[in-house]
């Protein structure tokens, strides 16, 4: 693992973060927006684990990653419940069609 500098892993997670951000900004479908959010959360996890591996001889980063994974699972479940409930109401999951709470 010595041969790969920490910077390369950070470049990877930066690229993953901005790919997720791009998807979140351009998609017009709530499920794919949720998928982009998962990518963003995963890029943060990669950062935490990589810093823990290279700079910190302890397991704090790993514990943080575990908590983020648990919270992401809860978030995905609630988001999908909201999406399904919205689909029943307006028969679409385009966020621009969901105007009931707009004003």
């Amino acid at each position, binding site marked *: 693992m010595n041969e790969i500098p920490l910077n390369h892993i950070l470049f990877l997670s930066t*690229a993953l973060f901005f790919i997720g951000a791009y998807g979140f900004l351009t998609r017009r479908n709530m*499920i794919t927006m949720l998928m982009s959010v998962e990518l963003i959360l995963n890029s943060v996890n990669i950062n935490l684990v990589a810093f823990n591996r*290279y700079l910190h001889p302890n397991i704090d980063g*790993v514990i943080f990653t575990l908590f983020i994974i648990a919270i992401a699972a*809860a978030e995905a479940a609630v988001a999908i419940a909201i999406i399904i409930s919205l689909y*029943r109401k307006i028969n679409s999951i385009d966020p621009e069609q969901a105007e009931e709470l707009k004003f």
Partner: protein
Amino acid sequence: MSAYQIWFYLIASMILGGALLAVTSRKIFRAAIALLVSLIGIAGLYYWMHYEFIAAVQTIVYVGGIVVLIIFSIFLTHNPGHTIEEPVNIREAFAFAGCFAGFAFVFSLLSRYSFEQTGDALNHTMQVADVGRALLSTGAGSYLLPFEAVSLLLLAAMVGCIVIAIKTRAKN
């Protein structure tokens, strides 16, 4: 090039390729499968960094849990063969420009700063028992309170999902 480097670049290309497909594919089911590939790649990256426990958790929770949930919700809300709407052109251009500028900014910051490796961190091995001890003890460097808070959060999320998604029957 050693095997370690080759594995890293293979895993990185798998992660980034899957992520790119997941945000650009016009077929929603293909996007979900590409997300699956990307998440498996991230589990492989954790394995590459010798955190086998995190790799297992990532595989179980993300690949086995969240992606399956997403695929279920696709089945519940889409007709088969449905293609996603094209993004609005002007918004796509601005999003691309913004994300590219942000990536270039962070890239230039990171490439100017070199992180010094600390030797003992690379040789540190994590035992699963350490994780259990840190999660279930009090005192310095332990996480009992956040652990209990997350268990409450999961309970609240479970009840909340049922309440939100339950089918209410109209009274006559």
